[in-house]
């Protein structure tokens, strides 16, 4: 590693754990950091850890983290020479990338052109077909209902109608038979127009029991581009990932090689540089895979790739953005061991995974060999409703898959979060499930398991009495202590209590 300093100062246009992750990378590279924040985040951890911090505005994202003008003004004012967008917010916004470069700053990510090329589902699919990357059988650019009807027949039901400009499940309809087609097209068009101002749709084969397998790719500005293997991201709820792992238990070395080559071809087709991810739909029955979309940014789940490949993706993002050459070739990379990430969300599995907010009364992160926690919170932090519910990413690395699962189960047990409801118990249930052990979890598994009651709680019979004893004794034992001071203000601390429904119960 050269010790020359790629930049003097970087502004981080993000918040929470990813802002902190980037600050750490900068610090190790000897680069100063500028945090930005909204009024809701004025004492949050990323503000504390950065060398400087600039208030952008009100809590609403469009007043702060989504405000291009304010971000660029903050960078100019602090004399930053580059902006790292993190993930989410403006990270996949081609206009932002262009505006950053126009302001004479470096955007730490791909070119605006690459972002744009991959931003449209229909156009990127056409580009991928041209590059020889397998795509889900289907058609783009259709207009009349008759055209759709013919296309669907050719593809075979069920089919999926989705918005060309779409994302996040909006403007998407599954059609099981011809009778549903007309209404689905109508509904998807309306939603697409409302959400994206663009009513174009595409139609493709619907794969019900598919897995989500993505490939990390990484390239420099000199034409070097490699893949860094796969991540299996099939444990999802509401199209949001919960648990990711690598290697995927489904891939053979041959498939991995094929998919890796397809990922590299996909990225090269749009002249990609910096970190990116090619998402594939994988059909475990036929062992076929199709390009789904490309995320033109760092991914939430990048740490599992870092652990099995041994490279620091965020540091390399920064160095590549500064024009450095990526010194590795494909054959330098090997997967070692097995890594899993669990996303600890402030959400209530027993309440439809809806958000939970509040002050963190306790936030004790697990530790130990092979355990990494990327988080943006400490005891006393407020979890507000303004931003996403991710409290922490709990990541483990171990010799093999079963050792990694065991390590994760212990680490989840040691993760203490009081003050908001989390999905920790829920993830324990997933990890303990036979389907997970066998690598059989497809993207709709959580939904179906919740419906069928197939997800058994991981609970001890004696837990209830023990919990009550502990709650009661805490009042006695901790009385007068600071962290429990609220208790002593109560005239009637013991009577009566009700166990609030939780996932377990």
């Amino acid at each position: 590693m050269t010790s020359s300093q790629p930049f003097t100062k970087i502004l981080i246009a993000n918040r929470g754990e990813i802002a902190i992750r980037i600050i750490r990378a900068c610090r190790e590279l000897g680069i100063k950091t500028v945090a930005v924040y909204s009024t809701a985040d004025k004492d949050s951890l990323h503000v504390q850890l950065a060398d400087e911090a600039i208030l952008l505005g009100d809590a609403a994202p469009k007043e702060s983290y989504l405000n291009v003008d304010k971000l660029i003004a903050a960078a100019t004012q602090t004399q930053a020479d580059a902006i790292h967008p993190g993930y989410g917010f403006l990270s996949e916004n081609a206009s932002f990338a262009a505006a950053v470069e126009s302001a004479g700053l470096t955007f730490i990510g791909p070119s605006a052109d690459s972002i744009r090329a991959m931003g449209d589902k229909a156009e990127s699919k056409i580009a991928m077909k041209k590059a020889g990357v397998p795509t889900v059988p289907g058609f783009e650019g259709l207009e009349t209902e008759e055209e759709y009807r013919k296309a669907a027949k050719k593809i075979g039901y069920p089919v999926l109608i989705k918005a060309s400009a779409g994302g996040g499940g909006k403007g998407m309809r599954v059609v099981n038979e011809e009778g549903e087609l007309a209404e689905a097209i109508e509904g998807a068009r309306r939603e697409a127009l409302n959400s994206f101002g663009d009513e174009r749709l595409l139609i493709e084969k619907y794969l019900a029991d598919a897995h989500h397998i993505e490939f990390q790719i990484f390239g420099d500005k000199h034409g070097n581009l490699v893949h860094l293997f796969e991540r299996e991201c099939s444990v999802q709820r509401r199209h949001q990932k919960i648990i990711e792992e690598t290697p995927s238990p489904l891939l053979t070395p041959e498939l991995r090689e094929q998919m890796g080559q397809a990922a590299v071809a996909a990225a090269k087709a749009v002249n990609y540089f910096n970190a990116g991810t090619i998402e594939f739909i994988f059909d475990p029955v036929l062992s076929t895979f199709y390009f789904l979309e490309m995320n033109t940014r760092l991914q939430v789940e990048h740490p599992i790739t870092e652990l099995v490949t041994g490279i620091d993706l965020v540091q390399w993002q920064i160095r590549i953005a500064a024009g450095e050459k990526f010194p590795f070739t494909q054959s330098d990379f090997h997967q070692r061991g097995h890594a899993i990430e669990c996303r600890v969300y402030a959400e209530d599995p027993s309440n439809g995974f809806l958000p939970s907010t509040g002050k963190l009364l306790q936030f004790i992160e697990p530790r130990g060999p092979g355990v990494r926690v990327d988080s943006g919170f400490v005891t006393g932090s407020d979890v507000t409703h303004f931003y996403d519910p991710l409290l922490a990413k709990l990541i483990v690395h171990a010799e093999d898959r079963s050792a990694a699962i065991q390590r994760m189960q212990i680490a989840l047990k040691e993760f203490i979060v009081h003050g908001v409801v989390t999905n920790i118990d829920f993830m324990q249930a997933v990890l303990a499930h036979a389907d997970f052990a066998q690598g059989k979890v497809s993207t709709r598994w959580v939904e179906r398991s919740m419906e069928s009651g197939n997800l058994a709680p991981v609970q001890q019979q004696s837990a209830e009495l023990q919990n009550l004893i502990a709650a009661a004794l805490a009042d006695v034992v901790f009385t007068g202590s600071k962290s429990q001071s609220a208790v002593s203000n109560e005239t009637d601390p013991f009577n009566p209590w009700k166990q609030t429904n939780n996932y377990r119960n």
Partner: protein
Amino acid sequence: MKITFDTQTLEINPSGDNYVASMDGQTVSVQVLRADATRGRMDLLIDGKKVTAYVSSDMAKRWVTIDGQTMMLTKTSGAKKGVRHDHAGGLIAPMPGQVRSVSVSAGDVVKKGQTLMTMEAMKMEIRIQALKDGKVKTVHAAQGQTVEREQILIEMEE
């Protein structure tokens, strides 16, 4: 001391340096091995078995974690009077968040399934829809307002 818990009652009494706890006719001895208030952590010996508990509390709730399982106890007497935790007379917020839009006013006649209000929290949007045909009695939340979970948003006429 006694704790009423849903329909059960837990009784804990000192016994020498230790405690005796009983519930539903089951009696166990409890010893506090050590307690660290800063971390809210206690090591207990319950019926001869070591149990580590993390306990936190705010005014109305206790959070207890034992062996990775977290239980939340809500103080029922601490809840506001008159706020019913069900959907009987009205529509309540299913999550904490912010009211994004309000589509109805008092007196409006609405149909089952009609969207009356939208809420947003943590990048998620939720529609508050009428549970049955009826007439809006009162709208309790305005656009932009922050609401708590289970707060009443709209009351319907009976």
